[in-house]
């Protein structure tokens, strides 16, 4: 018997994957239900479906505590499709970890006939008769208020700055009857944080049906106009004032404000540290006025992550003010050159309306025109959820949550249980209560009492595993290609279609160095040649030069200001609705997204051609 791992009609099974020995012990870091092959039944089930390494949500090896965020959506989104809206053929999502790489997959099989029938009845009532009919701006307003409330709950959690040697007087006088210990408070805050993250992810409940509506609208447009492109359809349905763009818009506003008082602009442009700049600004009237506006913009907009929103180490604009200040500097310089930095809302909105009317007018059959109007109306009413949840969940809620979690980590580090705050994220949320309790226990019991475990030693080992995992290139796909694609979510977000799966199967046997052409989604039109700048982490984004072609895994909103510099954008991940696509179209930059492995194939300095009309990226000349 020879090895089956490179069989052409399937990808390797989880068990066949060789995980480097440097990663030994990785399994202990994650909850057991995240592992493959925990029981024979489960292994059979797992080997019968396709697993995608989900770089969209986890572009790098996943830290145990960061995995909670993924866990939260696994269940909240699944329950909303299977048990709440009851999308007849959809079956939810499964998450796994293999060698620290995160895999996610929708069920590529259908529920039994009778269950589909039952679901269809409920779906007709809840989605067809309610969601598609009643949802509109008021419902969205209520949605936003409710997710903000979850945010407020996270913010209001009180975490003691330390476990004090003696509880302070205030806890005793005048009425000690409400006293609970500081150790308990830390433990309680942790439990609440976990629970609040699970709660927050229910705010993705609208995505399934909203994606469904946009797919139906898109299919209908393609029947009416066989040559219509995904880009054009997206332009029709996408909103102009998407909240994901607000952080960047706030910066643009602040830059304009700064320009109206030369002393403020001068301070913002100089090379002082952020702290020094803030102090300088506080010295003058105009500076104070600007600071007022700056402070106002922070909540909620500066909770935007500096990365994807999915990793604790990415930080947000509040914790890394260098990032917004660096952008402000760039914006002010751009404004001084007489260039525009704000998105022209009215023009964009006018262009969208004209586009829709232009197509609508070409529909000759009256029933079809009515159908177009009705579907368009539904999509426009439900689409804001798909656009705006990213800011509120992945940025606002995640950043708040990470900030609170770091307060807890600080207490733990202060008491010497861990070396540094980020080490807490090396433990999962079932282990951390034990860690905190261990601390709570020895603190409560007095002086000189040993911990039950050497947490520092454990963290050190796990840090090494994570470093090794970052060097390992894990398989992008596991298991067998699907026979059906039941979930609208997987088509919209991951671009999984019949065609792409076949392409992946083919691509999995090719040597990276031999690839000179990559195929992706044509996200923004134009054909451009230039030099590639491959960016894989936040630190590198500031090194992007004028007229570079940005090559990245995915882009995130915090990077938006860099789009005024670059000539074109290429990403590994994403579809026509992803951030890179939207921003590129608005800035008129050519873009190809969802190429699969551009960051692995293309090297900084390669001369490349980006064809945004056809979705093709060609390497013309490799860098020496």
């Amino acid at each position, binding site marked *: 018997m020879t090895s089956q791992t490179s069989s052409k009609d399937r990808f390797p099974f989880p068990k066949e994957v060789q995980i480097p020995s440097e990663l030994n012990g990785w399994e202990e870091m994650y909850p057991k239900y995240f592992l493959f092959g925990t029981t024979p039944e489960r292994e059979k089930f797992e080997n019968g479906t396709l697993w995608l390494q989900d770089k969209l949500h986890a572009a790098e090896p996943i830290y145990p505590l960061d995995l909670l965020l993924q866990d939260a959506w696994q269940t909240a989104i699944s329950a909303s499709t299977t048990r709440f809206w009851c*999308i*007849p*053929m959809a079956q939810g999502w499964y998450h796994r970890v293999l060698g620290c790489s995160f895999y996610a997959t929708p069920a590529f099989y*259908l529920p039994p006939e009778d269950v*589909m029938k039952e679901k*269809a009845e409920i*779906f*007709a009532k809840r*989605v*067809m008769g309610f969601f*598609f009919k009643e949802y509109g701006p008021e419902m969205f307003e209520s949605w936003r208020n409710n997710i903000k409330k979850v945010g407020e709950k996270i913010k209001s959690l009180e975490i003691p700055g330390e476990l004090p040697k003696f509880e302070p007087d205030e806890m005793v006088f005048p009425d000690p009857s409400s006293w609970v210990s500081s150790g308990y408070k830390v433990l309680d805050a942790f439990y609440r944080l976990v629970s609040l993250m699970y709660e927050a992810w229910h705010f993705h409940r609208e995505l399934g049906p909203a994606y*469904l*509506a946009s*797919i*139906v609208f898109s*299919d*209908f447009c393609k*029947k*009416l*106009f*066989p*040559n*219509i*492109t995904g880009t*054009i359809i997206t332009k029709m349905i996408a909103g102009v004032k998407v909240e994901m763009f607000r952080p960047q818009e706030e910066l643009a506003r602040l830059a304009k404000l700064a320009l109206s008082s030369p002393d403020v602009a001068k301070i913002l442009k100089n090379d002082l540290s952020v702290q020094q700049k803030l102090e300088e600004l506080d010295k003058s009237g105009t500076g104070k006025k600007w600071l007022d506006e700056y402070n106002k913009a922070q909540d909620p907009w500066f909770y935007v992550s500096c990365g994807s929103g999915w990793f604790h180490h990415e930080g947000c604009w509040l914790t890394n003010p260098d990032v917004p200040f660096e952008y402000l500097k760039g914006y002010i310089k751009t404004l001084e050159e007489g260039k525009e930095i704000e998105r022209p809302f009215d023009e964009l909105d006018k262009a969208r309306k004209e*586009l829709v009317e*232009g*197509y609508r007018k*070409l529909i*000759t*059959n009256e*029933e*079809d025109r*009515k*159908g177009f109007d*009705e*579907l368009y109306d*539904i999509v426009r009413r439900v689409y804001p959820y798909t656009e705006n949840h990213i800011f509120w969940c992945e940025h606002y809620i995640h950043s708040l949550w990470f900030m609170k979690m770091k307060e807890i980590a600080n207490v733990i580090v202060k008491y010497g249980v861990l070396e540094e705050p980020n080490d807490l994220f090396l433990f999962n949320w079932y282990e951390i209560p034990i860690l905190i309790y261990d601390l709570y226990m020895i603190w409560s019991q007095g002086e000189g009492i040993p911990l039950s475990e050497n947490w520092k030693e454990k963290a050190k080992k796990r840090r090494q595993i994570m470093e090794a995992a970052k060097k390992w290139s894990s398989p992008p796909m596991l298991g067998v*290609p*699907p*026979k*059906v*694609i*039941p979930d*609208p979510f997987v*088509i919209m977000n991951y671009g999984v*279609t*019949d065609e792409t*799966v*076949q392409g992946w199967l083919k691509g999995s046997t090719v040597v990276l160095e031999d690839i000179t052409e990559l195929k992706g989604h044509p996200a923004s*039109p134009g054909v451009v040649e230039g030099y590639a700048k491959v960016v894989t982490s936040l630190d590198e984004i500031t090194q992007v030069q004028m007229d570079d072609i940005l090559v990245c895994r995915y882009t995130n909103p915090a990077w938006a200001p860099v789009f005024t510099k670059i000539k074109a954008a290429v990403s590994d991940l994403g579809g026509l609705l992803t951030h890179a696509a939207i921003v590129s179209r608005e800035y008129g930059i050519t873009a190809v997204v969802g190429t699969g492995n551009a960051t692995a194939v293309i090297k900084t300095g390669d001369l490349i051609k980006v064809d945004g*009309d056809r979705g093709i990226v060609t390497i013309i000349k490799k860098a020496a």
Partner: protein
Amino acid sequence: MEDKDKKKWIYRLEELTKEYNDIVGKKCANLGELTRAGFRVPYGFALGLDAYEMFMKETGALEEVKKYFLSFKGDPENTADLSKWQEASEVTRGIIESKSMPPSMADTILSYYEELCGKARIQDCPVATRSAGAASHPGQYESFLYVRGGEEVLRNIIKVWGSTLNQRSLVNRAKGNYSVEYDPIGVVVLQMINSKSAGVILTLNPSNGDRSVITIEGSFGLGEAVVSGKVTPDRWMVNKVLLEIMEKYISNDKHFQYTCDSEKKLVTIELPSELRNTPCLNEGEIKELVKIANKIEEHYGCPQDIEWAIDKEIPFPENLFIVQTRPETIWSKKQQKSVLDKKSSLDLLMERATTPIKVK
């Protein structure tokens, strides 16, 4: 100009609308409609079906032709008789072409031609004389290009009329039991555009009927090279709504062009190899053509089949001329069918939620 009691038989294009279809023929009526709607059409005038009749009667040509056919025996269904029909055509066309334009008609036509030369500011302005049937039969009758000077204009109008007696028209009419000797048509006399490139536009995608697409085909020189299919033209598919080029095909086989020489005579010129694969339009010209095509389609309210030409000397965009338009017929009929096919928009949503995508 003409006697007031006589029926009007000659028109400036701007006097015509599509309502004049049966009086001057489709092509003339459409060119008039376009001119009146403000599209840039070359200067021209049209001779109505009555002019044909007047000529045929006043010169006695009709009598002579009729007489010839009285003694003619030929079976239109029998291919062995085709040479007989060819001979009949040669004889009867000879009869027509031997006649001179009756003096009163000649004076009027010449005064219209003078007026055209005056507007175009070209002495002995080159024109095309083209046939215009009341019913559309494209390509059946003949057209003559680069006709210069009053006498030549008169002679070529007569030649166009004579072309109603070409062999295939005779056979067609005999088969259909129409009077063989006689088929009144209009004639348009249209200023020649000395075109650097020319071609056709269809205001949809001919391969799938997509109405959001405009298809442009063109080549160097006169449009005849494209229309006749003697060169492989360049092709652009343009998004009608966004005015963006979606697809272009630059032919490497534009091997010759029809153009005029220094004497203003029609000549065929081999294209040098570097021009054969050079696009015959630039982006600005394409966008302008698309805008015009959109407006024409909007004006007529249905997809159009348009002929265009770009002048060599006039500056852009005043050099873009429309020399013909007619309704597209193939897809326009099909598209009456509904895509929804009796379903409602909600049915589509429900269907999508219950029908999984199958993977091959």
